[in-house]
């Protein structure tokens, strides 16, 4: 287990504040947050590349806080791969072996074949595609058999085809028992790869938990916004009902003790229909007007105004075409009580 105990870094204009985190062996741990949240700083601190101001880093029962990077047996793969441009692929991959106590050549061969870079061995990094460079960087990082693999946004510089390919490789590597901590700002990657996730914003850990838990029940509006809960309304709670400041009333799935807070609804949990729903049977039903329909790749984002409130909903392209929905049209929204999250 790798533990961060009150890890703090004070830099001019930015602080990483008192981070507590436990990463279990063989876990695929994700660290998410917007740009400038301190994610890379945190990874570099774990790797020993960044001087920490307070706190400790433990691996099992060993305090590694003051261990130099070369003694930690932790590998890091950067977003820009950071391959050695003057060395061949083979020299890059075997670079760390001379310092490694157990030079497991068969394992390196296995990695090379797993990541399909055997045909690239004599080439220089600058002649490789982004996906190939990323695979070489992964092989180089894993060749030294690190106790922990840190990945700093490994997919963000790749085009979609390579991104899916590298995701598959990461899944394969994880299934072989490698502990991975990956930084990303894309929650989609968290959902497809991660087991646990920590949300970092402005140097503060906002929430740590299982991916599904953070995805469904974000701890605060900042996390909710980050995990894609695009409908957030400040409101007052009375028993199992919530009233927004703009006058909308929602029925919740249980009673709430606190008097006020936020309601969060994921766009994909809002159903749009021309049918007239009976609110007592179907949950929360509202009628509004379509304000805009914007393509978001495989889905369309439909914005509906209800009174002074705006709801964001996602529809599949096929459903949208079938329904023939257009801007300014009146439409009914249905939101099931269990899909409404009180924050």
């Amino acid at each position, binding site marked *: 287990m790798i533990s961060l105990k009150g890890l703090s870094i004070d830099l001019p204009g930015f602080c990483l504040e008192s981070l507590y985190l436990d990463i279990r062996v063989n876990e695929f741990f994700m660290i998410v947050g917007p740009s400038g949240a301190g994610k890379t700083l945190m990874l*570099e601190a774990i*790797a*020993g*590349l960044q001087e920490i101001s307070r706190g400790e880093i433990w691996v099992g029962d060993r305090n590694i806080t003051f261990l*130099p*990077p*070369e003694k*930690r047996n*932790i*590998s*890091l793969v*950067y*977003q*820009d*791969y*950071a*391959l*050695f*441009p*003057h060395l061949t692929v083979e020299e890059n991959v075997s*670079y*760390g072996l*001379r*310092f*490694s106590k157990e030079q497991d050549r068969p394992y390196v061969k296995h990695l090379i074949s797993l990541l399909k870079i055997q045909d690239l061995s004599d080439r*220089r*990094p*600058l002649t*490789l*595609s*982004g996906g190939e*460079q990323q695979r070489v960087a992964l092989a*180089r*990082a894993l060749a*030294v058999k690190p106790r922990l693999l840190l990945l700093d946004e490994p997919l963000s*510089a790749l085009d979609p085809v390579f991104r899916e390919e590298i995701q598959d490789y990461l899944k394969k590597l994880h299934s072989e028992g490698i502990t991975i901590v990956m930084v990303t700002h894309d929650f989609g990657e968290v959902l497809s790869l991660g087991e646990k996730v920590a949300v970092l914003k402005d140097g503060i850990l906002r929430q740590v938990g299982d991916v599904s838990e953070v995805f469904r029940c974000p701890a605060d509006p900042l996390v909710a916004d980050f995990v894609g809960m695009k409908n957030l309304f400040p409101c007052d709670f009375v028993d199992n009902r919530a009233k927004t400041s703009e006058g909308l009333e929602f029925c919740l799935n249980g009673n709430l003790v606190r008097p006020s807070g936020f309601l969060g609804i994921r766009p994909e949990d809002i159903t749009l229909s021309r049918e007239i729903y009976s609110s007592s049977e179907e949950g929360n039903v509202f009628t509004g007007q379509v304000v805009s329909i914007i393509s978001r790749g495989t889905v369309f984002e439909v914005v509906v105004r209800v009174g002074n409130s705006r709801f964001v909903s996602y529809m599949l392209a096929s459903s949208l075409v079938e329904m023939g929905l257009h801007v300014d049209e009146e439409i009914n929204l249905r939101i099931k009580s269990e899909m409404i999250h009180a924050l």
Partner: protein
Amino acid sequence: MKFLSHVRNKWFCVLMGSFLVAYIIVPLAGLYLRVDIQVAMKTLKDMEVLSAMWRSVWTAAMATGVIFIFGTPLAYFLARNEFRGKSFLEAVIDVPIMVPHTVAGIAVLMIFSPKAFLGSLLIRIGLEPINSSLGIVMACIFVSIPFYVDSARDAFSAVSPRIEKVSRLLGASMGYTFFRISLPLARRGIFSGLIMSWARAVSEFGAVVIIAYHPMVAPTLIYDRFATFGLKYSTPIAVQLITLCLFMFILLRLLASGKDLGFRGEETNDLP
């Protein structure tokens, strides 16, 4: 229209640039054309000239060697660290470019004169800093420092710190990382700095003449022959020095060019 405009711009640049290139080539070519062949042939066998030439070459090489040893860690430090007073320090390093070289010579003389602490110390251990090859080397070091340090600093700055970090994480020590990663990746800039530094030292006159008129280096001998015998007897030595420098320059540039890695720090993001 676009094509015509492109051609026009190109020729404008070529025309303007040609003026400066001609400004260098014409006077130098003039030197070669005005050389008295008979005097030139005699000069080729003149032991005093050959000795001055050789002294110029090796004292410049010694000065460059010293700058390389002390300047490389300094250049690396400047490339990798931000601190208060960095701009001031960089300005100090560049001072030898700005001051007249006779002033540089006087400054170095003040430190290494027999009355000064360092000068008396050197004399006590049997080294003579004034009117000696050692003095020439010292003067050359002073004027050549910025040419190497600036070039090496820029070369180290172009090496991504992430590459060094990865090397450390793979188990390499700081020293190993420097010699296996940073230095090879910065080698072109370092080599270029060494060439410039050597070239500055080999052609130095102002600072050298203050500290060591004797033993003579080539530029001092050219001046001496000019003052004593006139243009006819100084030109052949000047031509010899230019030929030697050109030959060394071309040779070193060829050696330095090597294979272009095309590496420029973080640009790997934009690769296919």
